[in-house]
């Protein structure tokens, strides 16, 4: 088991290096640091001096891959690739183009993100699975057809619609919850209710349909027929036997996104004023702060790979047939 995890971690390295190279090429080759400085300082009427000054201030005044002027290892380390990209492997994100410490910001902002994303995931999972089982229970009836069409309708509504109209009707017209805001501790719950509810409703359409296909695949298997032949009720077969066996594909879908919960949701956070990593990223995109976007890309990739590894490990817990070597 430990050997397997170690090997997976080693496999992850080339992927991370690939991610790093892609982002580096996107950010530094398509537009040079000069272009970056120009757009940060305001596109026109910028003197070459101001550009040089900006580059020096933000550490962009080095060559891309190879530094001729340095000595020794400095030839490699005194380059943009080393200082801006390789250092991320040690989680040194450096300073943003606006001058803030990115690593510090990330640690501070990931908790609000988690406070929103984790309840959305858990509650969503619960409602989706229960509703999907109910629909499977009534298969072949008008309830199933109606439910599925309702799911398609819910799927076809933009998530922005849920947010904007949810804020308007629940927050403003009915005044049940605050429209937006955030505070730590237990007082913060009143701010989270609305975004969590909207997040769950927004995912219901796709979720139910996905879990329904999983359950339908299980329901045609032999063990279900055996259980029914033994005289177990349809309810019991569905909620105990089928649910347990369908857990394996459900887990694959869920575990892989658990680490990414820290990244938060881009639009939810910015609409509801939650100071998490999602709104951090949006702000960075809007102010064209490349350093933050680059760090978030790398962080996202790391968390995704962590999710993949966790998925494989979780297999061994739910499915005794799986052995990792």
């Amino acid at each position, binding site marked *: 088991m430990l050997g397997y995890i170690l090997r997976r971690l080693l496999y992850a390295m*080339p*992927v991370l290096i*690939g*991610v790093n190279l*892609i*982002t580096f090429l*996107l*950010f530094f080759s*398509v*537009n040079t640091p000069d*272009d*970056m400085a*120009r*757009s940060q300082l305001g*596109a026109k009427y910028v003197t070459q001096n101001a550009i040089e000054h900006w580059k020096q201030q933000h550490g962009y005044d080095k060559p891309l891959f190879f530094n001729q002027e340095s000595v020794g290892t400095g030839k490699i380390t005194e380059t943009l690739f080393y200082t801006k990209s390789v250092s991320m492997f040690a989680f040194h994100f450096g300073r943003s183009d606006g001058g803030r410490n990115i690593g510090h910001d990330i640690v501070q902002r990931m908790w609000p993100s988690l406070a929103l994303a984790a309840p959305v995931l858990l509650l969503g999972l619960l409602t989706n699975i229960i509703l999907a089982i109910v629909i499977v229970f009534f298969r072949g009836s008008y309830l199933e057809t109606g439910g*599925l*069409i309702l799911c*398609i*309708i819910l*799927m*076809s*509504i*933009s*998530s*922005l*619609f849920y947010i*904007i109209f949810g804020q*308007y009707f629940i927050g*403003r017209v009915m005044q049940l919850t605050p429209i937006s805001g955030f505070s730590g501790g237990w007082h913060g719950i009143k701010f989270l209710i609305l975004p969590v509810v909207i997040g769950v409703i927004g995912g219901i359409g796709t979720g139910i349909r996905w879990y329904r296909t999983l359950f*339908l695949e299980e329901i*045609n298997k032999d063990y279900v027929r055996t259980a029914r032949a033994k005289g177990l009720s349809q309810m019991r077969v569905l909620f105990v036997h089928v649910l347990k066996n369908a857990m394996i594909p459900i887990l694959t879908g869920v575990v892989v996104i658990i680490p*990414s919960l820290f*990244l938060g949701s*881009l*639009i939810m956070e910015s609409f509801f004023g939650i100071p998490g990593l999602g709104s951090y*990223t*949006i702000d960075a*995109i*809007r102010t*064209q702060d*490349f350093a933050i*976007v*680059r760090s*978030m*890309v790398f962080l*996202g*990739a790391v968390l*995704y*790979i962590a999710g993949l590894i966790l998925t494989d490990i979780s297999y061994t817990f739910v499915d005794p047939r799986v052995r990792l070597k």
Partner: protein
Amino acid sequence: MIHFTFLTTDYLLFLVLTLLAICLCVSFRSQQFSVSWRQMLTKPLAMSSLVVLCFYITIGLLDSIHFRVPTAQGHHSIKVYSFFDKVIGESTTEKTYSAPLATHAYNKVSRLTPDGRIVRFYSALKHIPGHVLASHGHYVLDVVFTFLKASMWALFLWLALLLIWVKLSPHVTVKKFIRGDLPLAWRSFWITLGIMLLMIFMAHGMSGNYHVLGTNKIGHDVFYECLKGIRTALLIGSLTTLFMLPFAVLLGTMAGYFGGIVDDVIQYIYTTLSSIPGVLLIAAAILSIQVYIDNHPETFSSLASRADARLITLCLILGVTSWTNLCRVLRAETLKLRELDFIQASKALGAGHGRIIWSHIVPNLVHIILITAVLDFSHLILAEAVLTYVGVGVDPTTFSWGNMIDSARLEFAREPIVWWPLLGAFSFMFIFVLSVNLFADALRDAFDPRTRFGG
């Protein structure tokens, strides 16, 4: 003399539709697929969504024939018009907000009267003809009359078309049609067509005297912007599919079929790409291209071509982020197919790798490709709005529902609220996405072997 100036996206859209038409023709000829198509079109919902989709596609196509008109000085205008603009005619631009079908502006304006007092009043809209403004009675009468006239015309045209169709098709009688006793779901086809015709005639009739969906902050007609958004949505969906499909199909089947080092390399590529959060990759690419466009103004001659370049980049990068999923599924399916007897048999008969993949494996993957492509299409239309909100979607000058929502979302918080731009954009998007999703659902039922044979 008008001067046709096709944008790059126009060419690409026509290319996509030509390819689509060819694929449809080929699939109607083949025994296997024509049965599936026929089965699909017996479903009322599938037929209705197909009619709606055809309307959307037609508007998108008309909007993709661009040209410049000559000006008084003998040059061609800088502004690029589309055929669609000319068909519906240009709408008057008001000063600012006005509600749907309103005769007066939404907010009061102040004016200094000759005797030095300031009066605040609702100014009349420029678009509204004088006789309607005369009194409230005239207004109501005009609305009702326009409504009735449009309905009559729509009903007349619909009945005429229906009767011609019944006369011309050999096995159709009026009795059978009313009972729904026909091989395909023709009844829902005609009902949907009737509703669409009614909507078109009403919109056309009302647009003559009113702003059907009101005007936005800068006084532009919201209904017109909604219609223009169709082309952008269509482009984002279809171009992304065009860029994505070849990669996904080629790499997916190759990885599954050859295995070994080819499989490793392809798996590495798609793991790397899918481990980058999609929105961030799109953001990175769009930010980079925007800086490039801003710093190289000489490459992009007009505003339209700049917006066009950004749109194509967006589609390209959306293609890059979305091919990995399909590729993974196709690889897994090819792995299964590879071991089957008929592949082994054709290998034993000496068929080359290319031939086996193209004529034995790919036909067995078509249903997956088709269903995924149509489902992705609807996701992409929804994604456009979110990306535009984040600031990495289409260019702010492009007509798109995302742009409309982004600029109207703050108006929703003002008092009194301005709800029509949001309602317009969301309903146009909803109807489009809903019909694509219903279509995809019917497609899955008809083409997926698991559901086709009683699953």
